[in-house]
């Protein structure tokens, strides 16, 4: 990446947030900023300005006024801005560019927008990903993603979704929505739902960047945000060990733990400890705690499965879901053996019979109980249901081992 490309990535969100505030128009701000970066290429090739951010902001504001004029959408606000702009041609200093990203986050993650649009809009405006990049990450056609973004921006304008940080009494609820968008981005990166690749590291990195930003912008530490960042850091730290040279999935128990990102694990654990001091643990904190127990085991056989089973039990009590119950069953099988776990798994049959991991888990337990035929049937069903190619290869390998 050239320095300008890097700068575009790093500064896009802040510049756009300031521009939208200045011109009161999402589209015009975005178009102007895009044009500004394009125009900067030849200018900067000659000489990089002393304060890049200020230069870009000054130029983009000027362009935004042009864009509004062009569209005939020249509001009173833009008029005042133009006048001010004519009067002072003084260069904008780095710190004069206001940071309005918190407003931008709350607008993009507004509950009146559909969740997939919230995710797309957040990645486009705050992270500076292009529409094509987002489309690729979510395996949809660029034109579909572009339409999704256009519709979302249309609703922001049409229904007047405010460009504002919500009042204190609504903040917890609205912040939860923001946090779940960040988690959606991470999950899509961490376990790609379908397609050829197992995970998309760049989405994980963007989610972590967003959580760090959120943490820096909100005035008081919130346990939900701290816990989510901890959870993502802990999971993402294992990324280098999750896939072997052939691109195959490597199970947690078989991973080369020396390849885990120690620094990131330590940061995650420290964050989690702080979050746990802030109040009773929510779902993200409990999941982060489970990841931390894994992180603390030097070898797979050192894992404190009793502790993990207990954490899943708490998660199940407070936030019941069949997938959580399935994970608890896996932990129980490690702590107390497959005989204790199988009834727990079988009890989830009606809820999870279409979920490949339910069949894969049953297959694993049955294999450990030496019930090979039943195990093979379960793995076969799992391999039929799975949509990710790398996971499918993994399941077929297990199946072949059983039939050998």
């Amino acid at each position, binding site marked *: 990446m050239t320095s300008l490309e890097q700068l575009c990535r790093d500064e896009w969100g802040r510049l756009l947030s300031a521009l939208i505030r200045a011109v009161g128009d999402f589209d015009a701000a975005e178009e102007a900023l895009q044009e500004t970066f394009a125009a900067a290429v030849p200018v900067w090739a000659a000489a990089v300005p002393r304060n890049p951010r200020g230069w870009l902001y000054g130029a983009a504001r000027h362009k935004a006024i042009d864009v509004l004029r062009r569209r005939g959408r020249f509001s009173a606000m833009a008029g005042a801005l133009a006048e001010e702009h004519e009067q002072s041609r003084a260069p904008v200093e780095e710190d004069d560019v206001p940071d309005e990203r918190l407003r931008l986050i709350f607008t993009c993650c*507004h509950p*009146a927008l559909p969740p997939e649009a919230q995710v797309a809009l957040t990645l486009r405006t705050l992270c500076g990903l292009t529409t094509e990049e987002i489309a690729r990450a979510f395996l949809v056609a660029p034109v579909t993603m572009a339409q999704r973004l256009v519709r979302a921006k249309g609703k922001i304008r*049409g*229904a*007047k*979704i*405010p460009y*504002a940080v*919500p009042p204190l009494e*609504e903040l917890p609820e609205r912040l939860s929505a923001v946090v779940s968008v960040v988690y959606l981005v991470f999950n899509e990166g961490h376990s790609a739902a379908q397609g050829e690749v197992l995970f998309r590291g760049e989405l994980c990195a963007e989610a972590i960047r967003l959580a760090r930003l959120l943490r820096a912008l909100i005035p008081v530490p919130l346990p939900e945000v701290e816990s989510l960042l901890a959870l993502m850091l802990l999971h993402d730290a294992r990324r280098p060990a999750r896939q072997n040279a052939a691109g195959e999935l490597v199970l947690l128990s078989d991973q080369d733990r020396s390849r885990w990102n120690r620094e990131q694990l330590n940061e995650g654990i420290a964050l989690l400890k702080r979050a746990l001091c802030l109040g009773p643990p929510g779902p993200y904190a409990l999941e982060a705690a489970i990841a931390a127990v894994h992180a603390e085991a030097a070898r797979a056989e050192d894992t404190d499965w009793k502790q993990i089973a207990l954490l899943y039990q708490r998660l199940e009590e407070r936030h019941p879901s069949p997938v959580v119950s399935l994970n608890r069953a896996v932990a129980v099988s490690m702590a107390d053996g497959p005989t204790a776990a199988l009834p727990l798994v079988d009890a989830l049959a009606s809820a999870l019979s279409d979920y490949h991991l339910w069949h894969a888990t049953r297959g694993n337990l049955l294999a450990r109980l030496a019930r090979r035929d039943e195990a093979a049937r379960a793995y076969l069903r799992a391999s039929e249901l799975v949509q990710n190619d790398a996971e499918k290869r993994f399941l077929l390998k297990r199946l072949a081992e059983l039939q050998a």
Partner: protein
Amino acid sequence: MQYLLLIYENEKRYANGYDPKEMEGYAAYGKEFGAKIKAGNALQPTSTATTVRLREDKRLTTDGPFAETKEQLGGFYLMEAKDIDEAIHMAGKIPAARFGSIEVRPIMKFD
């Protein structure tokens, strides 16, 4: 900016008249947002509805609502609000929000 708050709920709840407690809720709502309410009415049940369509210049008049649904349009408020957040806030305070759903629709402005 104006928003129409459309109140959808199962009209069977009113088959045997109105709960006076709930009516008090609407009276209180009217007081609280009196300055914001531009218009508002309750509708008679869908058994009184008539639907009109013009097809090939012929008017077709049929008995019943536009579509049979589990919840029916039972009333509305037209509200003045500074943005959708204020409209959502007011929608959430309509007594029917506890039983049915309130659809929030910004009013179209033609330049």
